[in-house]
């Protein structure tokens, strides 16, 4: 009997297409001796589809056509597994399309990577790979992540957070606060988006206003922090959970612009291979040309960050290196990294199938540990209930 893994991808996210690439790479890399993979595509409208073409990358050139020849399904939890029911149901015959033992979210961005999908799976009662609800949410919100890391003595750049309403009503006040607490150049980011969307650097007040307006196209909350002038970026991946975690090889991504843009990340490699390789096709220096001491510092800090946030599965932590002061800062954590950062693990001897195998084991371990805790007590307070609903609790 093979373990059935349901790989979920797509979703109502700006990084919808990227996750298709991540997912299909993973689907193809699973050890088919041990696992049976069921690809589950989530459309932008929030519908789930399965079918023989859902796991093929070519199908996604024409998504409408793909949908019309695929089966719409409804996930339902049953005794710790996820049942996929045909929707609408057939009049005769079996309406169970398949039953999944473990869910594997291969999604990026808000609405899917931020705990929403994780919470849904937890409610269904099926074990799932990767960060749980809290760590997913912390990973997605740059401000919350900084707060937790600061409390753990992990270096992060100080930032100021503000919302779009305050910006439109008290613009001057916000500008003064920002100029007071920060110094130019300043980088402005939406608080909860990934993949460098909505990010701009400002060198003066005019630039600041432009950058903030730009960021508020994409989110209701934004943060501003000091931009590092002499900057190098180093990324490192971590695999494990709260108990044991290990770090991968380090990489240094190459920018074509001031900051790594969406185009850089996903526009795709060189002209010949075309797009469609995701993070794995990006230009990068792997391993990153840094000293062994710095490499160890990065890897140690990456593990510390991973554990401080209560992360699980495989994550990629992006660092900022201020080369003037030779100081390292944690920029952000990607709780579901592009291509699951498999290319960072191959250099340290963890091949993609093994990476996936360990991710599934971690998911089952968490499920096992959580089910050992009793979440309901034997008392039935409703059995002895008398009188009104008010004043029930003391």
């Amino acid at each position: 009997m093979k373990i059935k893994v349901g790989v979920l991808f797509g979703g109502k996210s700006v990084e919808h297409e990227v996750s298709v690439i991540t997912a299909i790479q993973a689907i193809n890399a699973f050890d088919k001796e041990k696992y049976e993979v069921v690809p589950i595509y989530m459309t932008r409208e929030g519908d789930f589809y399965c079918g023989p073409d859902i796991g093929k990358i070519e199908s996604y050139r024409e998504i409408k056509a793909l949908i019309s020849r695929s089966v719409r399904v409804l996930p339902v939890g049953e005794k710790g597994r996820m049942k996929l029911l045909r929707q609408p149901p057939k009049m005769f015959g079996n309406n169970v399309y398949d039953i999944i033992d473990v869910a594997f979210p291969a999604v990026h961005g808000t609405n899917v990577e931020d705990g929403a999908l994780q919470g849904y799976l937890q409610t269904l009662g099926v074990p799932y790979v990767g960060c749980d609800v809290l760590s997913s949410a912390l990973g997605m919100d740059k401000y919350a992540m900084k707060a937790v890391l600061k409390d753990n003595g992990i270096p992060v750049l100080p930032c100021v957070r503000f919302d779009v309403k305050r910006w439109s009503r008290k613009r001057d006040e916000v500008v003064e606060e920002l100029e007071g607490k920060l110094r130019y150049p300043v980088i402005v980011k939406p608080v909860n988006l990934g993949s460098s969307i909505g990010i701009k650097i400002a060198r003066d007040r005019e630039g600041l206003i432009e950058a903030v307006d730009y960021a508020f196209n994409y989110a209701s909350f934004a943060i501003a922090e000091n931009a590092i002038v002499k900057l190098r970026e180093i990324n490192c991946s971590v695999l494990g959970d709260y108990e044991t975690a290990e770090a991968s090889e380090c990489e240094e991504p190459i920018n074509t612009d001031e900051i790594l843009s969406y185009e850089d990340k996903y526009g795709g490699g060189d002209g010949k291979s075309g797009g469609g390789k995701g993070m794995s096709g990006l230009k990068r220096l792997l391993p990153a040309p840094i000293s062994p001491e710095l490499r160890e510092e990065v890897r140690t800090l990456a593990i510390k960050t991973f554990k401080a946030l209560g992360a699980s599965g495989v994550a990629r932590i992006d660092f900022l290196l201020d080369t003037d002061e030779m100081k390292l800062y944690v920029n952000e954590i990607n709780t579901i990294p592009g291509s699951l950062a498999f290319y960072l693990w191959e250099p340290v001897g963890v091949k993609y199938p093994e990476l996936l195998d360990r991710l599934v084991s971690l998911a089952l371990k968490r499920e096992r540990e959580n089910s050992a805790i009793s979440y309901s007590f034997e008392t039935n307070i409703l059995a002895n209930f008398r009188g009104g609903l008010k004043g029930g609790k003391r």
Partner: protein
Amino acid sequence: MADTVGFVIYTLCFLFAAAMLTKRQMHMFQLNMYNMASHIGWIRRDRKGLLHSLPALLAAVLALVPGAGYFSAALLAVTALLSIEGRAKKPLVVTKRVLRMFVTLAILYALFVALAAALEGARRYFCAAFALVVFLNPLTVLLANILMKPVESSINRGFIRDAERIISGMPRLTVIGVTGSYGKTSVKFYIGKLLSAKYNVLVTPESYNTTLGVVRTIREHLRPTHEVFVCEMGAKGVGEIKEICDIVKPKMGIITSIGPQHLETFGSIENIINTKFELEESLPEDGIIFLNTDNEYIAGRQVKARRVSYGCESEADYRARDIKVSEHGSEFKLTGKDGVEYTFVTKLIGRHNVQNIAGAIAVADTLGVPMEDIVTQVRRLESVPHRLQLINKGRDVIIDDAFNSNPSGAKAALSVLGEFSGFKVLVTPGMIELGEKQYELNYEFGRQASMVCDFVALVGERQTKPIYEGLISAGYDKSKIFVGATIQAALAAVEALQTNERKVILLENDLPDNY
């Protein structure tokens, strides 16, 4: 009864009586595990059933008497009403098998009635036959069982083949067999809890330990994500352990104890020993057998598989030392395979539970669970329902040891009771299925109880006579003994006792409805 109306009324009374009696019979048959021999034994002892069906015998005679037709029908209705069961401890579960038997019987009855309706002239004789069938109702259930046997066997074989297919589709699964005369269920749950620190474990639920129970567990609960399957194996006769092993193919086994349980169906102690060791014989070349060497029958036996011993009293690979037991739990020391001594603390009470935990630790340590994690899991162990389970009831404490008692466990339960402060009460219907030793062992139990208990409530006068005599022979005061017919009466008597201190009530063995 030549007139149609009369015949119809008679038939209805007949069917009513048949339905009520059949339901009761089916219920008891289910409790007797669908075992013909057990059920026949029960029929013989069922005085109440015989008494309640006597009106039907009279009805059979009266049916032949002209003019007594309606009176005869009324007697059948009375029989029906007498047989209606009250609330049962374990009510009838209408499984597919039970349904198949009901349908078979319904068809037979329908044919019978149709025949009677067709042969107008012989109706009087048919009515007498109806009443006779009601009186002989126990036989109809046995008949249905015999008729359905080929169908049931075929269905069961299908289930067994399905389970075998599932097991062979999971070659990486580690199957651990757990058997013994007693302590199986406890040890199985403890092993499951300790191994869960590192592995995804499935254990057979509740007390499922028959071939079909194990097969059902595999078909309904085993998942590809499971890494270990802890399978409880029970037996009442020779070859039954081997039957389960042939299906699950265990890689490891543990034998928790050997004693005179089910002596009447096994025949001899030698048979019991050989049957338990069928588990060891089923292991592969690199299999491991865990043995409770405190038990003399186990310690002396030669085995082929790699042997790991555990216990409290004897020299063993995993020997629990410095054992402290109290009403708050137990504490002991044990050395793992790394040579380091660890202290274990648990909420579980009773010295034999320490022995059970030592066995579970042996298995977990051998399977590579880190000892620190084992210590944590032991701390979290909870009592298995109805096995020395502590229940606080206001001021009083109940020690619920209601499941399948055995002499060794009963003795241990009494010593646990002795650890508690308060007014100590024993409530018991005695121990059963001990064959020729039943009198002797219950007598001994009575003697042991006399030394610990402040009050003893016995359920079922006939059954508990040996205990009563054991108590008296030890000089126990008669006024401190209550003998009642039901458990409810016994508990009510205990409730009514006036005491200064809290009551500590040991419920030792609770017999199922078919006793």
